[in-house]
């Protein structure tokens, strides 16, 4: 067995040389003129691996900002009477200091923080940081492509994201504060500067930023789709693609179909704001005067928004599905259970994602009859989701599991996805949603199922593919501490919110003490806040680990440190632009040939030809 492992790299190189596909890469790209200097190599790089890292690090910076925001508003919710004037140097006029020197958070800024937290986490961290990172890194590597179909558009995709980030970041420093009408930005609140301070310049920048963000998503998405369809290496049929690629592929399609609708919603909103149109506005009396707008419908915006908004949650979670499937299979040393069922589930979820948007709008005044259809489609989504969960659990069954930070996070993901997914059955059923809509139950649900779970998928991916990104390992002990702290911490934060929600407490309340019904959870809210602060500390551990390991981590010595079967591990330890030095590998088999064999090995690389016996029992 030891011989096999030792000889494997040589054997693999031979296989690539003999069976691989010669695309005359060296003749065209000798010396790689595109990466000749520092700027083209590290900043305006067209190498998908560099762009992936750019997405990841930008996403991490945003995650820290968004996380810190949540701590500030958690302080307000957990300790509303506490003196927070020590935050004044950072937050300035948003801390109201009274005559006794007691500082409290301005409610206006509370709402700005909540809004920014949502926007940042949903779009910048879990869309750009997750899908952007791993689609970029893995699509070419796992398909055996030299790069994306259009490296230039790919580079532009990142830089539009960067531009969008700069604008959003700038809006945090406006004197009227950033946008504060909730990440969903429902008009008329978002349309009328009279309605809220944040709906002035803050909203304008918010909208502009997100339009650039959509450009970024579209440029990326069209590239991912094209690459998956056209640049698969020899032998890589669709049914041989790893589940990561399937997930990124469907994610890109969802993004391409839904994000433009968001832009159209924003465009009409901009018209209402700036040009005096009445798409969303009607019969409004505000600030002592009746506005001229008549005939518009605020509900129209909600339809357009959620036509993106719901697919968006699958845009966030599907890449995590893919990553977790891959990491679980590799570390359980078993094929992913029910590969085809997994693919069909992804496709089914992707399709149904477009038919459920109005389940966010059961209580928004749409005709109750319409809700019938959305309830049915929403609950149908539970079926493919359940199949995926059962398959992940079955993947562990009779495995030989290697516990490391990546696999721990993958297992944690499944636990979170179960917990958060099941509460979706309550909310998706409109009858129950009458009571639970816009309460903390919803906050608990979506944070667990698409916040924490997506983060777990992202962490699993970062720990697993860090060696491929930087040629070094992250410290795995620290990774495991990070996992256990986050696992316990995340449940401690979000589980109790179910109870608060079931007691009827609405979300987006800056204080609860005005209500007899809502003020009873002071101690529970304190507990949640403390848990959030500690859990955030564990994430910093990960950040430290990440940056430390980039320069000082243990070096990768084996091309395939996890003994994985997919193509990215056949590239050199530090692959250059173009990924493979000679031929690109040809694929001979599916991506999940794991399991102990007679010769003692427990996986077969995708580039190894099938034996005669295997050919007879085609997968």
């Amino acid at each position, binding site marked *: 067995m030891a011989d096999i492992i030792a000889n494997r790299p040589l054997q693999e190189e031979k296989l690539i040389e003999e069976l691989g596909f010669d695309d005359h890469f060296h003749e065209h790209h000798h010396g790689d003129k595109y990466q000749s200097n520092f700027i083209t190599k590290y900043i305006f790089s067209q190498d998908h691996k560099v762009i992936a890292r750019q997405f990841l690090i930008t996403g991490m910076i945003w995650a820290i900002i968004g996380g810190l925001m949540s701590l500030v508003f958690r302080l307000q919710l957990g300790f509303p009477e506490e003196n927070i004037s020590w935050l004044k140097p950072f937050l300035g006029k948003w801390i109201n200091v009274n005559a006794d020197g007691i500082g409290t958070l301005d409610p*206006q800024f509370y*709402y700005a923080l909540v809004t920014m937290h949502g926007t940042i986490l949903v779009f910048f961290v879990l869309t750009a940081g997750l899908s952007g990172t791993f689609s970029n890194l893995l699509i070419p590597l796992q398909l055996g492509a030299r790069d994306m179909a259009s490296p230039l558009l790919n580079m532009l995709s990142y830089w539009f994201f960067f531009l969008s980030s700069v604008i959003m970041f700038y809006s945090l420093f406006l004197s009227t504060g950033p946008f504060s*009408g909730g990440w969903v930005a429902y008009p*008329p*609140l978002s349309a*009328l500067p009279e309605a809220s301070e944040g709906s002035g310049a803050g909203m304008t920048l918010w909208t502009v930023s997100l339009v650039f963000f959509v450009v970024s998503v579209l440029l990326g998405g069209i590239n991912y789709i094209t690459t998956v369809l056209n640049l698969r290496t020899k032998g890589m049929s669709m049914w041989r693609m790893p589940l990561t690629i399937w997930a990124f592929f469907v994610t890109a399609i969802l993004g391409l179909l839904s994000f433009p609708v968001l832009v159209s919603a924003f465009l009409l909103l901009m018209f209402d704001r700036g040009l005096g149109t009445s798409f969303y506005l*009607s*019969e*409004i009396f*505000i600030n*002592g005067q*009746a506005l001229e707008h008549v*005939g518009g*419908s*605020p*509900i129209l915006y909600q339809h357009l928004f959620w036509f993106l908004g719901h697919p968006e949650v699958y845009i966030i979670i599907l890449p995590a599905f893919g990553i977790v499937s891959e990491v679980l299979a590799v570390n359980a*040393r078993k094929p992913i*259970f029910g*590969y085809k*069922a997994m693919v069909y589930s992804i496709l089914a979820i992707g399709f149904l994602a477009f038919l459920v948007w109005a389940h966010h709008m059961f*209580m*928004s*005044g749409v005709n*109750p009859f319409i809700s019938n259809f959305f*309830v049915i489609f929403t609950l149908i989504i539970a*079926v493919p989701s359940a199949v995926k969960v059962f398959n*992940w659990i079955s993947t*562990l*069954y009779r495995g*030989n*599991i290697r*516990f*490391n930070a990546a696999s*721990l996070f993958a297992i944690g993901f*499944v636990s979170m996805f*179960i917990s958060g997914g099941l509460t979706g*059955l309550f909310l998706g*059923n*409109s*009858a*129950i949603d*009458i*009571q639970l*809509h*816009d309460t903390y139950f919803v906050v608990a649900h979506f944070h667990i199922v698409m916040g924490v779970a997506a983060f777990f998928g992202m962490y699993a991916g970062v720990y697993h593919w860090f060696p491929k990104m930087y040629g070094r390992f992250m410290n*795995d*002990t*620290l990774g495991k*501490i990070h996992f*256990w702290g986050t696992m316990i911490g995340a449940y401690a934060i979000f*589980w109790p919110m179910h*109870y608060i929600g079931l007691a009827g407490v609405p979300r*987006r309340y800056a204080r609860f003490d*005005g*209500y007899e019904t809502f003020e*009873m*959870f*002071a101690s529970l809210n304190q507990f949640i806040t403390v848990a959030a602060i500690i859990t955030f500390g564990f994430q910093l551990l990960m950040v430290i680990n990440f940056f430390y390991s980039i320069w000082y981590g243990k070096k990768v010595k084996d091309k395939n440190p996890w003994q994985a079967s997919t193509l990215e591990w056949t590239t050199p330890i530090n692959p250059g632009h173009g990924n493979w030095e000679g031929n690109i590998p040809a694929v001979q088999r599916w991506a999940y*040939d794991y399991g*102990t064999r007679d010769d003692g090995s427990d996986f077969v690389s995708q580039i190894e030809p099938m034996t005669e016996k295997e050919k007879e029992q085609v997968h």
Partner: protein
Amino acid sequence: MIGLIIVASIALIGIITVQIARLSEVAGRLRGEADMQFVTNKRNGTWMIGFMVIFLIACIGSALYYKNYMLGYGPHGAASAHGPVLDRIFNITLFFTGIVFVLTQIALFYFAYKYRGVKGGTSDHISHDNKLEVIWTLIPAVVMTFLVVGGLDAWNTVMADMSRDGVPALVPSAENEYLEIEATGYQFAWDIRYPGEDGLIGEKNFRLINTGTNPLGQDWKDEKNWDDFMASEIVLPVGTPIRVRITAKDVLHNFYLPHFRVKMDAIPGIPTYFVFTPEVTTEEYRERLKNTPEYNVPDDDDPSKMRWETFEYELACAELCGKGHYAMRKIVKVVDESEYREWLSNQQSYYVSQVRGTDADPNKGEVLGYEIEDRKADFNVAAESALNATVDSLRTVQLEYVTFETGSATLTDNSKYELENLVGFMKKYSDVSVELAGHTDNTGNADSNTALSQARAEAVYNYLSQNGVNGDRMRAIGYGSARPVDTNDTEEGRANNRRTEFTVLRTQGDV
């Protein structure tokens, strides 16, 4: 200082953690990475089981601990007729998801522990099992069908509007009657409007809104508005169907009554509704809480009272509407019918009490239907009592609403309503004779005052005789300023002195 110590200790903990992590990596290298992996597997596998046990116990334990706070459990059974239906669907869903939750979490963590990598361990090449996969596709599908059918059945019943034969009423008593009220959200409060005696809510138009004189933009030309009143609290009669018409003035709001399982967005330009029947009075709900230990502790805001004593149903906003979103509370009281009627008797029509006769009143100068009715009733009471009076001085009734053009004896148009009442009275009691008297104040020439008052009394006389009252039964006299009922030194007093009266002269009893 304390802050500094906290920051320093956190930094210290961080550094220690990082160092431990580095050391363990070094130790791992010394021990051999493969062997170290098995140690790690065992350790983390065991922790998986430990976590699972603690997690499941914590979930169930905490749920039981907080049970009495959660709506639908303990004392918090729904206070509306439709609420228990929704709570039951919640519990059915909880039953199925609870089973799935416990089983899948146990399977996940147990498999993780059981199949951890051990030295010489193997993994099986199991790629799929069609039969198994069909089974676990079908089971969720069947359960979902069950949940969908139950949920939609309830949804379509609860969200249905009032039936067509329903009749709105302020105090519903018949089977098909219901009370319709209107809730209007704005930054950052609710205005609650009751329909008044007619049971109907009047029309409104956002262009008519005036923060001072017409906060809802009610159209005062619409007579349904005249009796509508604004309430500082929502008071509802128990056991009566309530239809809430939900509107908004500026941005989106949401009409949310947690204890009644009521929730609906308020949208500017698009009125929405929610129909529900409150079944539990505020007092009865307090009684329920009284028997619950969690509510038998001193109240947070008023420690002299117990929590259950301070309980109120509350209206909250559940759609982000700006920086005061969290402060749109309104108290809801559910009371029995007699208490409701008593409360109603203290409410005043917004139009009558705030608008009628002011510059903001488009009906200024007109007599409105309800006023004609009221005056008729008042007149009849006064006339009957004059008729039955045994003392002469009580036989005189002032015709308060009979007025003349300034300085002339021409009756104003509005005088005819009161005169019609007098005609009716004369016709009803055909044996009654009256004296019609005109009075002026003391300003001006005494003779001309007397002449004017005489002419005015005759104008009334003429009106009556033209309307079928025999002239023999009446006499008209002008007293000028000779019989003042008030001082002539103030304008108010002088106004009281300028008046027209009638005095019952003879009834059958007299003859």
